[in-house]
């Protein structure tokens, strides 16, 4: 297929029909079913491109990130990095892959081992990637610490994580993810645990690093208001699937999927009158991922549901506008 060859040539990461299911064990043997945390996700990420994943808690964003990172094994489908499928890499190539993909987590204090100082934390990726010369390791630690603006570097190297402020901790996390000069950073809600004042700083730092190193970033968030700072494209996730995919401006200007509409309508705006009014939100709760509803997963809550279609068949991906994909029968 032509699209396949194309994707091999100019995309860094391509995720195809990815399913990550977790088995629910019953009585230690038989199984009670599966939690379908990621259930058929497709997307492409080019070199130096930033994509945001948006969705509420429990929609599978973090599981998707962890599957891409190789922490979880996909049940079905493939993660292809620079034309190589993840499942087929040998141990050594896997090590190479880990060095090419950085991981920035949500809670900076939790993400740093409490018994290691900054020097040890940053040295670890270098050690396991066999950078044997001590001088070279020190040089790279200084370089990356300067890049994340933790200067003077020597003041911080002997500090333990609990001695740093939240923003500094997150800078160390970013430094750790950057130290092997990766091509891709997966940022899983990198600023949601930080103070509002530090948030923008960290986002600007990530953006600056992304541009100076031509990094691809997949930015996972539940906060649509920070997306515009950061990415070129948005994927909206709902109940383990990507329901809408579009360039940032298009999506924010003209959201198509009913769920995206609801999501954007739910962004709070600072207006005193809000105290007296109620926002329209879709009724009900997100579905159980153990036993998702048939057809479109949003149909039980959707105002535009087409009886006999939406509740029967899963919608495929329609290209409703140029580069604007939406999984909804309304755009057949």
């Amino acid at each position, binding site marked *: 297929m032509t699209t396949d060859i194309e994707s091999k040539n100019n995309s860094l990461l391509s995720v195809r029909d990815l399913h990550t299911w977790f088995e629910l064990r019953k009585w*230690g043997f038989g199984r009670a079913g599966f939690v379908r945390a990621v259930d058929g996700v497709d997307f492409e990420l080019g070199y130096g491109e930033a994509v945001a994943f948006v969705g509420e808690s429990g929609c599978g964003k973090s599981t998707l990130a962890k599957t891409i990172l190789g922490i979880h094994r996909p049940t079905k489908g493939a993660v292809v990095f620079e034309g190589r499928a993840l499942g087929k890499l040998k141990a050594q190539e896997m*090590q190479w892959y*880990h060095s090419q993909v950085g*991981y920035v987590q949500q809670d900076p204090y939790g993400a740093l081992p409490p018994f290691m100082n900054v020097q040890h934390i940053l040295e*670890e990726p270098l050690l*396991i990637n066999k950078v044997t010369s001590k001088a070279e390791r020190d040089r790279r630690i200084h370089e990356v610490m300067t890049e994340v603006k933790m200067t003077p570097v020597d003041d911080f190297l002997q500090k*333990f994580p609990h*001695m740093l402020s939240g923003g500094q901790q997150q800078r160390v996390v970013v430094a*750790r993810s950057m130290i092997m000069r990766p091509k891709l950073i997966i940022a899983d809600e990198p600023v949601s645990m930080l103070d509002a004042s530090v948030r923008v700083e960290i986002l600007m730092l990530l953006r600056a690093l992304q541009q100076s190193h031509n990094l691809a970033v997949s930015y996972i968030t539940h906060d649509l208001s920070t997306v515009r700072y950061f990415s070129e494209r948005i994927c909206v996730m709902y109940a383990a699937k990507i329901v809408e995919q579009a360039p940032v401006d298009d999506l924010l200007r003209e959201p198509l999927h009913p769920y995206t509409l609801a999501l954007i309508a739910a962004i709070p705006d600072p207006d005193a009158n809000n105290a007296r009014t109620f926002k329209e939100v879709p009724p009900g709760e997100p579905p159980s991922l153990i036993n998702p509803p048939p057809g479109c997963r949003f149909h039980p809550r959707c105002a535009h549901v087409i009886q006999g279609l939406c509740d029967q068949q899963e919608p495929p991906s329609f290209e409703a506008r140029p580069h604007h994909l939406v999984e909804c029968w309304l755009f057949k």
Partner: protein
Amino acid sequence: MTTTQSKTRAAADSAYALEEALRGPSRSFWQDAWIRFRRDRLAITGGLVFFFLCAMALGAPLISQYVTGYDPDRINLRENYQPPSVTHWFGTDEYGRDYFTRIVWAGRISLAIGFMVAIGSVVIGVALGLISGYFGGKIDDFLQAIVNIVAATPFLPLLIIVGSLIKLDWLGVAFLLTILGWTGELRIVRGQVLSIKQRDYVLAAQAIGVKDRRIMFQHILPNVFSIVLVILGFDIVGAMLTEAGLSFLGFGVQPPTATWGNMLSNALSYATRNPWLVFFPGLAISLAVFSIYLLADGLRDAMDPRLKR
């Protein structure tokens, strides 16, 4: 940069410099731990008492040769039941043996049993607990099955059977206590590992590509370490007390080899007429127990960098 910004930045910088000056230069982990430990008076006291007991036990031959001049097992019926005096510091027992010399020698066996059982069961428990908790799944099921079997083995009947088949010396008792004693350690460590392996920094290490063994030893073990230290203290004490209880029932280390436990149980028959025979072994056991607890607790606090003031 506006003036207010640069002002706050300058203020922050000077505050930071001040803090640095107050705290002094950065120190290594072990230096820090030592400084914290030194501040802890109780732990220092515990450490000194414990060190003193160990030194006494190790130097037992020297003490009986140069200090007291008695052989711990030499019977002298003419001098039995003597109360503490200048010639017999802790008095003598029913066979006229010098009680202080016997306490010193008994410390050797009691402490040795305590250490061997504690270290043995902690090593087994921690190693298997790490594996069981970290890998989970089938490995975990398998190890848990073994743990349940071992934990369900009734200790006393087994000891009676083994004891009637072969004559147990103190090494045999220590060995039996170890192979039946590691299950509690494994369960505690496994529980800790189960919670720690879900933490973000373990996921981060996996995402970097750190090997399982390195994650277990470098990322998880340090967090379990403080608990392991406390368990180690408990185990030394526990093994000493179990040995004492066994001796009381007649299954532990047999006379004439003295342990604090069998001296205590033996002395109970004479408790009303010769209370010092009960008092001194009891004092030795209590001192050992207290000092080990205090020491273990202090070490635990000292090795946790988060507890730094």
